[in-house]
């Protein structure tokens, strides 16, 4: 916009409002490798002490690597399942002649807006009845199901932009409908698959409530639950340690986000978080 206005007041007001975020994230990084005297805000010693949890288990906790592996299995399984199921269902709804097609799409839209967290109590009871409580598989399948409306909706949107001519040409050349989807259409919606895949992976990686409620056992713990249980333990209160574990936990998120920022923006724009 034109420059005949003074933008200093805006800058000052915005900066003041942003101070908490700025402080929290600067000190998140700073505190993981420094020590600060109690009652002071300036770090006065550089140390790697707070990262010792990488090589040595925290008292009463299982190895961070086991937890990281669980989290990775959880997040990537959710990602793969969401990708697979959404890419087929999205195509069916966008392009194939199926009965109740209109109703399916309406259902996807309604469920997409529906706040799935309210179902946690019923899901907890269902998993108990099915015997899937306390298993990573149970949480994966629940998380996938709850992500599906969003996933199908996004994939449907991407399929809608693929020109019909591509498919018609494929059919003319004698390819089956499946072959056309697999060889011609899927490559066209790659950006959608990447965005949805990264989004699902990040959602799985960050999820706290589902794994904590549905699989609280130690051997299937994920990083969110691990960090929360560290903080909840009143005996060993150590913000610097918590922050180091937290930074370790959040690094993949930050990198994936920075790398796929443009692709993710679409999904976050219609995001579901409070």
């Amino acid at each position, binding site marked *: 916009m034109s420059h005949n206005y003074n933008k200093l007041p805006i800058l000052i007001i915005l900066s003041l409002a942003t101070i908490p975020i700025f402080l929290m994230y600067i000190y998140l990084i700073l505190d993981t490798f420094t020590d600060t005297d109690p009652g002071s805000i300036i770090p006065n010693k550089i140390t790697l002490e707070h990262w010792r949890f990488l090589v040595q288990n925290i008292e009463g906790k299982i190895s961070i690597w086991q937890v990281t592996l669980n989290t990775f299995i959880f997040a990537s399984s959710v990602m793969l399942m969401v990708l697979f199921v959404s890419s087929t*269902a999205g195509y069916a709804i966008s392009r194939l002649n199926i009965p109740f097609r209109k109703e399916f799409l309406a259902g996807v839209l309604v469920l997409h807006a529906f706040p799935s967290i309210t*179902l946690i109590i*019923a899901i907890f009871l269902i998993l108990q009845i099915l015997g899937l409580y306390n298993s990573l598989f149970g949480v994966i399948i629940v998380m996938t199901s709850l992500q599906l409306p969003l996933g199908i909706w996004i994939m449907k949107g991407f399929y809608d932009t693929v020109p019909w001519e591509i498919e018609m040409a494929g059919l003319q050349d004698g390819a089956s409908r499946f072959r056309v989807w697999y060889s011609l259409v899927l490559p066209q919606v790659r950006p959608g698959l990447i965005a949805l895949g990264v989004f699902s992976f990040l959602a799985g990686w960050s999820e706290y409530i589902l794994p904590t409620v549905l699989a609280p056992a130690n051997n299937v713990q994920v990083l969110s639950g691990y*960090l929360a249980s560290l903080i909840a333990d009143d005996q060993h209160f150590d913000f610097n340690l918590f922050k180091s574990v937290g930074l370790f936990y959040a690094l993949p998120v930050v990198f994936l986000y920075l790398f796929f920022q443009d692709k993710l923006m679409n999904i976050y724009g219609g995001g579901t978080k409070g």
Partner: protein
Amino acid sequence: MSISAKLGYVFIAPALILVVLFFLSPVILTGVFSFTNMSTATGITGGAYKLTTTVIRDLSEKGISKNTLKTIGSENYSISVDNLNSIKDKNINLALISELEQEHLGKIFNSRRNFERFLKKLNNRPRNIRDLKKVSKQFKSSLINRRFESKDEFIKSLEKLELKLNESEVAIIVEESYTGWVWTSENFHKMIILPETKQILINTGIYVTLTLFLFNTGFALILSISTFYLPKFQASIFRALWFLPRITPSVLYVLLWKWLTWDTGFMNAFLSYFGVQQRNWMLDTTINAWIFIILINGFIGASMGMIIFSSAITSIPKQILFASEVDGASRLQQIIHIILPQLKWPILFVLTYQCLSLLTSFEQILLSTDGGPGSTTEVWALSAYHNALNNYWGNLQYGYGAALALVLVAIGVIMSFTFLKIFRFNDLIKQPRIEQ
């Protein structure tokens, strides 16, 4: 059937199965569970029949006679197949066992004295007092605290006591001693009469209204409009910083707020330079707890509005803005007369959408104050979670929690259908153009 329809079935099936099993059925089952008294005590998959001292006390209030209860409550000695089988390997005279089995099966004695007197008269009676005691001990049984897996088994054991109960009395005893869950509408009654309900309703109102208006729309508007007027680089820095809370995993994000506000945290260290007393800023008073809950949620919520409003503002034709500047409009006039009217629909969308998510979200409150201090920041969704899934007392009220959740589910269903109406749905549906 056309090939495309067959492929369609195969393609839609996995999604349909998963969504029905873990998305639609929970919606319905929340309703079903809310009409039960399911809890940790009753279990989930069904129960057994067990008479405890508490049950007997309840039965006396329901009009079962004192004598009956006394017999039920006391121990008895019965010659049953089970008891005989269990003593076979206990080094007891086999002749005695077979005599009991053949001639006296099914007899019941209601005191040790009667049973021992009976034993002494048998042909193969125990030789001495020690053996007699040893034998009689094996036959001792009591309905008290004994677990029966089936109703028939329980009634049969009741009948063995020969109490001459009529059918309605048996029904009362069976009902009272059932340990599993039963159907009830008690949860909704409880929800209405409990004073806590009113409290969490007010809390939910405060939480949703303040966060929604101050941050999710209010501050989001300020952010998107002010960054619109800033040079690109500065704008992108502010947008990136305000986006951080949304992408940070919630556990870590709330931890950062705790570090800022708790006793050993940053605020105390900073304010101690000015001689302010150290305290837990997040939890020391109700007002402070509310301020931080709204800040914590608002800092996340602001970014969604920011993205949506920013893209709406950039889509306003630049010529209109230039023209207004030529005509001498001040920046404020530009915002009020050009930008805000363009944002009407995005604002309405963010308001309704975020209202629903705030109403049902409890993750950040759970991680930060957990409803404290006391239960002054307990909101509806958190209360459902606390009742059904996690509380200090350990007795989890699944049924009551489900009833609380059902209220939110109902609101969710209504509001999501409303969204469907607002979206121009028919525009989104296009008939497939390949008909095979």
